[in-house]
C-alpha cells in the first residue's frame, strides 16, 4: 500500500511539469458552447445525447493533451466541417453571415435617412407657402372690393 502511494506521488510529480506547461488550459466549458452537436442541433453544453457526450469526451481528451482552444476547434472542423461550430467563421464564405446583417442594418439606416429627408422636403414647401398670402387676380380683387362695399353699405 505504501509502495502504491509512493508510486502515485512520483507519477504526480513527474506529470506536474507537463500539466503546468500547458497553462492556461483550454476551457472545456467555453469549447462546449462553441461546438454544436450536429445530431441534435444544439451546442454541446445544452445536449446530453450519446453523440454530444462523445464529443465532450473528445474535447476533454484533447485538453488533457495540452491542445489549445484553436487546435481543438480546428480538429473538430477537420472532422465534421464548419457546421460543427456554433458561430460562423470570420473568413471565407462564412464571412457573409457576419457582413450581411451589418450591411442590412447600414442599408436600412441609409434608406431611413433618405426617406426622412425626402419626406421633410416634401412638407417644407407647403409650410413656406402657408406664410404667404395667395395673390388675387385683378378680377377677384374688384369682386372682393364690391362685396366689402356692399357689406359696409
Amino acid at each position: 500500500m505504501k509502495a502504491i502511494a509512493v508510486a502515485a506521488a512520483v507519477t504526480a510529480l513527474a506529470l506536474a511539469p507537463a500539466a503546468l506547461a500547458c497553462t492556461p488550459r483550454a476551457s472545456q466549458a467555453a469549447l462546449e458552447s462553441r461546438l454544436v452537436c450536429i445530431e441534435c442541433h444544439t451546442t454541446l453544453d445544452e445536449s446530453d445525447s450519446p453523440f454530444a457526450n462523445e464529443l465532450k469526451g473528445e474535447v476533454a481528451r484533447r485538453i488533457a493533451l495540452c491542445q489549445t482552444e484553436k487546435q481543438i476547434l480546428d480538429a473538430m472542423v477537420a472532422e465534421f466541417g464548419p457546421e460543427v461550430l456554433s458561430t460562423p467563421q470570420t473568413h471565407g464564405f462564412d464571412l457573409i453571415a457576419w457582413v450581411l446583417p451589418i450591411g442590412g442594418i447600414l442599408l436600412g439606416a441609409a434608406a431611413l435617412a433618405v426617406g426622412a429627408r425626402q419626406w421633410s422636403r416634401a412638407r417644407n414647401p407647403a409650410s413656406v407657402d402657408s406664410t404667404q398670402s395667395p395673390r388675387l387676380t385683378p378680377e377677384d380683387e374688384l369682386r372682393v372690393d364690391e362685396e366689402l362695399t356692399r357689406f359696409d353699405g
Partner: protein
Amino acid sequence: MRAVRVVAVASVLALLGLLVWDLVHQHGPGVAAKVDKGKAVPAPELDLPRLNGDGNLSLESLRGKVVVVNFWQSSCYPCKLEARDVAAASRAWAGKEVVFLGVDAQDLKSSARAYMKKYKVTYPNVRDALGKTWPKWGVTGVPETFFIDRRGRVVPPHITGQASREQIDAGIRRALQS
C-alpha cells in the same frame, strides 16, 4: 422614393423566391417510405469518403451486385447488438455477387474505426460526417438496413432497428430474385 419602392418590392420577391427554392429542394420522406409500401425505387446517389481506406466509394461502382446498405453509428446501442451478425453475414455472402456497404454517420473517425475493429467489420464502410444522406434515404435513426438489387433499385424489405441474421439473409435472397 421610387427607388426605395423598387428595392422593397425586389426584396419581397427575393424572399419569396428563396421560400419557393427551399420548398422545391426539400426531400420528401425519402426512399424508405416507398420501399416500406412494397415499391422498388432507384437508389439515391451515395458517394462518400471511405472509413477503412483511401478515397471515395460510390454506390454506382457496385452496380450489378446486390448491395446491403447498413446505416450505423458507433454510439448507437442497437448497432452494437447487430454488428457481429452483419459482419458474419458479409463474410458468408462474400463472393456470391453480394456486397455489404456500411454508412457511418455523425461520428468521430476514431470511434468509428475502433467500433469496426471491435466488431470485426471488414466490409467497405463510408463516412457521412453530417448525416446528409439520411433525408434522401429516409433514414430516421440508426441502425437501418436497405437492400439494393442488381439493377440499382432499393427493394423491400427495409429493416429499421437491429437486424437479425435471418432478416439479412432473407433480404439478400429477395434482392437476388428481383
